[in-house]
């Protein structure tokens, strides 16, 4: 009996538990390493979040520098906000096309295309941004700092998050009961009236979920953004100016700083912030789902 049932059951149960353990391990390790800068080097969370003074010491065990990461945080917020602004209208329109206008063409051409968009590696997006967008912004829009800009990062991110928002929104629109559509048509509405008065409002919470999933992807995106943002630690005067963000700073500096130093610890704190943002997004999605169920 042991071999016939308990061994196998034990093994698969163990693997299930392993997934929980892995998630906990990631959270705990990042929590420990990410709070070093506050515990060992006695900086305040307020300084980290709201100060622009960034001059951490890069010697193991030596503190006393400045770790204000506001520019990085704002850089992340700005690029993600811009990406969302660009991607949202396109994504929702594409979702409407797939679910309401032409499900057949949608599932045969548009959906496979979207799947391929998801599959394209982020470095390749960064490479495209670097070879097309940055020169274009430099020459045609006369960017003051050579094309590396918030705009370039926003566009690259927009292309990367639109598949997420589109897929989730299309699913939400498809889940709207057909009786809604029949009722709307029965009352004599046109398809467009049906879409913007019935389908989209009914799928609102699902679309919001897609937006948050997209945002969470945008926040964590690293190399594509790092390649086009310019990596200069100044507050941008406009979207044509370069800046820096959390992920690009981590990717660029983590390997060059001494382990156990203040600089390194500050970068780990940024990583912890990314983890917290991604966890917060999940919580928000669950809250949306719950409120959707209640109403």
């Amino acid at each position: 009996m042991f071999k016939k049932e308990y061994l196998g059951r034990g093994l698969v149960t163990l693997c299930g538990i392993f997934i929980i353990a892995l998630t906990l391990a990631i959270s705990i390790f990042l929590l420990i390493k990410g709070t070093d800068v506050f515990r060992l080097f006695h900086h305040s969370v307020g300084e980290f979040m709201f100060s622009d003074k960034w001059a951490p010491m890069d010697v193991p065990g030596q503190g006393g520098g400045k770790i204000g990461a506001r520019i990085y945080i704002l850089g992340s917020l700005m690029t993600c906000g811009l990406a969302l602004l660009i991607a949202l209208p396109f994504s929702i329109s594409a979702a409407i096309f797939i679910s309401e206008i032409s499900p057949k063409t949608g599932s045969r051409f548009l959906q496979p295309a979207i799947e391929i968009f998801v599959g394209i590696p982020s470095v390749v997006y960064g490479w495209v941004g670097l070879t097309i967008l940055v020169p274009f912004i430099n020459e045609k829009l006369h960017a003051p700092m050579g094309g590396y800009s918030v705009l370039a990062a926003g566009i690259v991110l927009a292309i990367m998050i639109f598949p997420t928002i589109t897929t989730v929104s299309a699913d939400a629109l498809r889940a709207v009961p057909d009786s809604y559509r029949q009722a709307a048509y029965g009352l004599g509405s046109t398809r467009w009236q049906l879409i913007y008065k019935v389908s989209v409002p009914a799928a609102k919470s699902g679309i919001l979920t897609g937006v948050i999933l997209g945002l969470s992807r945008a926040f964590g995106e690293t190399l594509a953004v790092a390649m086009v943002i310019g990596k200069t630690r100044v507050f941008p005067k406009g979207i044509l100016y370069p800046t820096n963000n959390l992920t690009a700073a981590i990717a660029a500096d983590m390997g060059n700083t001494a382990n156990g130093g203040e600089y390194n610890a500050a970068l780990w704190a940024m990583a912890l912030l990314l983890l917290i943002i991604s966890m917060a997004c999940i919580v928000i999605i669950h809250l949306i789902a719950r409120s959707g169920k209640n109403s």
Partner: protein
Amino acid sequence: MNEKSNRYARVRMTDRFMTGFFYGIGGFFILLLIVLAAYIIIKGILSIYPGVFSFTRNGIGNQFFNTVYLVLLSLLISVPIGVAAGAYLAEYSKNGRATEMITISIEALSSLPSIVVGLFGYLVFILLTGMRWNLFAGALAVTILSLPTITTTTRDALVALPSHFRSGSIGLGATRWQTLWHVLLPACIPRIVTGIILVAGRGFGEAAALLYTAGQSTFINWANWDLSSPTCPLNPFRPGETLSLHIWVMRTEGSMVSHSVETANVSSMVLMIMVLGFSLLARYLSRKLDEKNKGASK
């Protein structure tokens, strides 16, 4: 009356206009993909220089090999664990605390930014073990990224099986594990394989998680087959820069290297072709599967 018919005309006009608009957006994305893919591939072909595909310092052969090797290593770990965890969720777990915890964990894992996973890998597999950058650490980081997909694919495939698979097998006197192992999992293989192909495709393109795990350099001596040597191609504990990392290195720090831009162009082309190939393969498999299922239900 006239006013009313005017309104009808206007509403209908808007409807037609919006329909055209949505067709335009749909077409725009398909066009964008075609243009993007064509640009990457053509630019890559135009940048080919002699020796670019060679397994030397100037070529991208070594990086290509590292990419495939790393993804294979990671699949060796992630497939058994992911399939088992999915099987647990579908067949054994009751709707209790544990299931809920696993589901939340999967969700959390799948939404983690890959740089965070890479840093966790850096901390645990490099800093704590005291090793240098190595392929195996990279493979483990990619494993963390692909576990959620494999687990959910397996779970969904098992849940979608008709219940007479289970009742038939149990009725013949098999235990639940025997049912799972001999009946249910084999029936799910095509679906699971589709999931694995998608995961592998993502693994080929992964870079942020490998920056500080697999390392940003590679030295391979193709005449050296001593597994413990750091230049042996098959030694998993050597630094192993992958193709996607190579693009990053070439376009950021590698500007000193001759041909760095061309190398990045060609690497992007290779990655793009691999991604296209893998998603077409996955699509073909799942379509075949659908046809088979339709045939079965007739």
